[in-house]
């Protein structure tokens, strides 16, 4: 029997995909795992792969068509096998939308009713659900224990049938968490080998969250601006780049800022957090999202564990990620999971701006241009290179003073880059 090829959810948030290009054509032999087509998702161009062996019998949607997740886009089977041509229309939920040629996906007007063979049942939705990487297979009991003991099921390795998370897996996970967590003396215990810690919202936090959200969109933003003297950072950068010389891989201001933000976050874990509706997730790891402008939007590739990386590593990684982001070749795991973000419009001669938070992160810093300014220095006036930096904070997580002390650390690091070596 021929196998249907469905439009798969290639990223956690994908609801539909545009079939950019068929890399296999009708009649081509295919093996499970072969790339059949390139699909543009909401974030990137991804590969749709075959899940069966045989021949690509029929292609149901032309290139350029946008197809909801779960719809049939092709059939794989034995050569000469007949397939049900109604494939792409089987989902009652929504027929394929064709951007360039709307007519293509429109079903031909029904001819005089002919007795049909048994209709294929409409089942694409569950298939899409299975492809959802965020879904965890767990027993009801495991779910309940996890919920009450604060274990994240996504992080638990399941040992039941098909990797299902069962009671003993959660219990093992819970003891690990307990063993790792120090005595609850301080509200924010120190990093401890676990990637993050979930702290339930206190009543006052809940009230702040609710009240502020009603006043300014779903995320109650507030903004803190500071002007930073970049003279020494600039000198350090020049020296480092001279040192690197012909080796290439020069270090940019952006790389230095990412590193400084990461290190400051290590000291101010209260800003390295996600708002999660009923709790706040304080991360022990620092993953910096770096906003990159692309042709029709923007995307934030993530520099993981940026606090642990050298400037050179950050530089190389950010160039590589930005390059692939512009070509829309990022994998979902490369643009998700940031704990804090940096947005830089300095190259566009923007003095200062405010950036919009990328939820569930609680903060983002917006970097303006570095400009030479006349600054009073005692009795004299000196010319110094200055940077205006604005932090947007999610008030449900970060209060004014919390953000201010973080910015103070960040400012000190950038004004005295040697502090980063401490």
């Amino acid at each position: 029997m021929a196998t249907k090829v469905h439009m798969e959810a290639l990223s956690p948030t994908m609801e539909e995909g545009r079939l950019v290009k068929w890399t296999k054509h009708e009649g081509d032999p295919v093996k499970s795992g072969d790339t059949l087509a390139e699909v543009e998702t909401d974030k990137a161009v991804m590969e749709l792969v075959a899940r069966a062996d045989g021949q690509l019998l029929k292609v149901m949607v032309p290139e350029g068509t946008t197809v909801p997740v779960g719809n049939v886009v092709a059939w794989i089977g034995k050569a000469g096998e007949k397939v049900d041509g109604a494939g792409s229309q089987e989902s009652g939920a929504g027929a394929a939308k064709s951007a360039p040629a709307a007519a293509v996906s429109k079903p031909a007007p029904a001819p005089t009713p002919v007795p049909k063979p048994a209709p294929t049942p409409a089942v694409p939705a569950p298939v899409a659900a299975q492809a959802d990487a965020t879904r965890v297979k767990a027993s009801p009991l495991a779910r309940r224990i996890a919920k009450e003991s604060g274990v994240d099921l996504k992080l638990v390795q399941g040992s039941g049938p098909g990797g299902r998370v069962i009671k003993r897996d959660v219990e093992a996970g819970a003891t690990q968490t307990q063993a790792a967590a120090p005595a609850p003396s301080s509200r924010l215990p120190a990093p401890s080998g676990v990637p993050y810690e979930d702290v339930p919202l206190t009543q006052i936090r809940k009230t702040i969250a609710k009240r502020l959200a009603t006043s300014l969109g779903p995320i109650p933003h507030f903004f803190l601006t500071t002007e930073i003297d970049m003279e020494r950072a600039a000198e350090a950068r020049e020296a480092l780049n001279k040192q690197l010389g012909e080796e290439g891989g020069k270090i940019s201001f952006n790389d230095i800022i990412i590193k400084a933000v990461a290190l400051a976050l290590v000291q101010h874990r209260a800003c390295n957090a996600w708002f999660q509706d009923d709790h706040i997730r304080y991360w022990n790891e620092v993953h910096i999202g770096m906003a990159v402008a692309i042709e029709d939007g923007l995307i934030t590739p993530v520099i993981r564990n940026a606090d642990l990386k050298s400037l050179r590593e950050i530089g190389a990684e950010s160039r590589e990620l930005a390059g692939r982001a512009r070509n829309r070749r990022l994998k979902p795991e490369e643009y998700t999971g940031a704990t804090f973000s940096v947005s830089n419009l300095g190259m566009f001669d923007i003095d200062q701006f405010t950036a919009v938070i990328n939820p569930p992160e609680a903060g983002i810093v917006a970097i303006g241009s570095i400009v030479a300014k006349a600054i009073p220095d005692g009795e004299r006036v000196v010319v110094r290179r200055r940077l205006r930096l604005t932090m947007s904070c999610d008030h449900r997580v970060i209060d004014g003073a919390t953000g201010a002390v973080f910015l103070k650390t960040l400012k000190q690091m950038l004004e005295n880059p040697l502090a980063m070596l401490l």
Partner: protein
Amino acid sequence: MATFDVIILGGGPAGYVCAIRAAQLGLSTAVIEQDKLGGVCVNIGCIPTKALLHSAYIANLLKESKDFGVEAGDVKTDYGVAMKRSRRVSDQNSKGVEFLMKKNKITVVRGTGVLQPGKKVKVGSDVHEAKKAVVIATGSRVKGIPQIGLEINKTTVISSDEALLMEKIPATLAIIGAGAVGMEFADIFNAFGVKVTLIEALPRILPLEDAEASDTLSKSYRKRGIEVIAGAKVTKANVAKDKVTLDVEAGGEKKQVAAAAVLMAAGRAVNIENVGLKECGIQLTERGFIKVDKNLQTSTAGYYAIGDVAGPPMLAHKGSREGVVVAELVAGQKPHPIKYDNVPSVTYCHPEVASIGLTEEQCKEKKLDYVAGKFPFSANGRARGTGETEGFVKILRDKKYGEILGAHIVGADASEMIHELTVARENEYTVEEIELAIHAHPTMSEAVAQAALDSLGRVVDM
């Protein structure tokens, strides 16, 4: 000498199921059996007793049929006829196993197998060699209590083996041991007009079941005229030619029980003698079972043990599952480990007793924070219709997470109803999922949903 991938010693429910699974996985397989295929279960255990229990059920039903508007006249019973029917049922099942062996191209070697080192098994003068594994599934047998003069003599001191093949039944019978076997035979012989005395050493009959199950059965049996003596110590037995007199101490009182025969139903002994275990370096546990690791491998690599010889619970379905797991392991698969705390236990007396997980007494011993939800069949419409209102469903719910710690059903068809809870526990459903599943009305199974609700404090039908 023939060579196989797997040689299985014993064709009972553990051995034959292991053989079929091994054959399904492409292994060349031999089963060595000295008697009939199907073992105790098919021939002198599970299957023939169920046939006899149904005869007993019909006898009891007819006695009450007048109330249902059906008069059957004088009800006469004939154990000989019931016994012969039970033999036909057993033979059918044994032939069925033979057919399954052929169907799966499994070689059946008739004879007594003795293990030899190097994964070899000697049967008579032939030696067969296993390339991958030898599986020991030799099962168990009834044991007497020779210490107090109750050696099985097959006439006045009998075991289930004799009881299952009797043409004529004694007028009076003392049964020693009120576990599943004793309970079932008490039910059978009572229905066939035998005066039965049931003697249990532990404080209550069905000692491994929940105390409320024991109580319900005690009442039911006494109502039917079975004498039940629990917490009883048989201090002395006097075995005469056609009579046995037992000195029994119970509740501080001494009394004598006289019966035409005594049925020994106080435990079973595993068949580990003359199997060649020692010669192969296979060790035993302190309690005399074959010592196995978590993969059911014995202390000698390449030799596995499954079923009764591998330790309790001594139940056919536990042995069968062990057979499947060993076959899969030998074939290089990774089977899911057996949940030994999720093996259902069933006694097919009337009313039936079926359970899974912990008893309420065990919950208390473990100091678990639990709630018992209970629903009696006397409040169940279907049960009232059939007149089967004895018994209840009891679900032990963990207070914090709603886990089903244990479930106990006493009632008609309890053996069938328990599986809802077995599946639930295997999949870690909580009491809430049981209740959420819509139960057809009117059914006995509604009592399961009601007991779940009761454990949540919101029973509807009571």
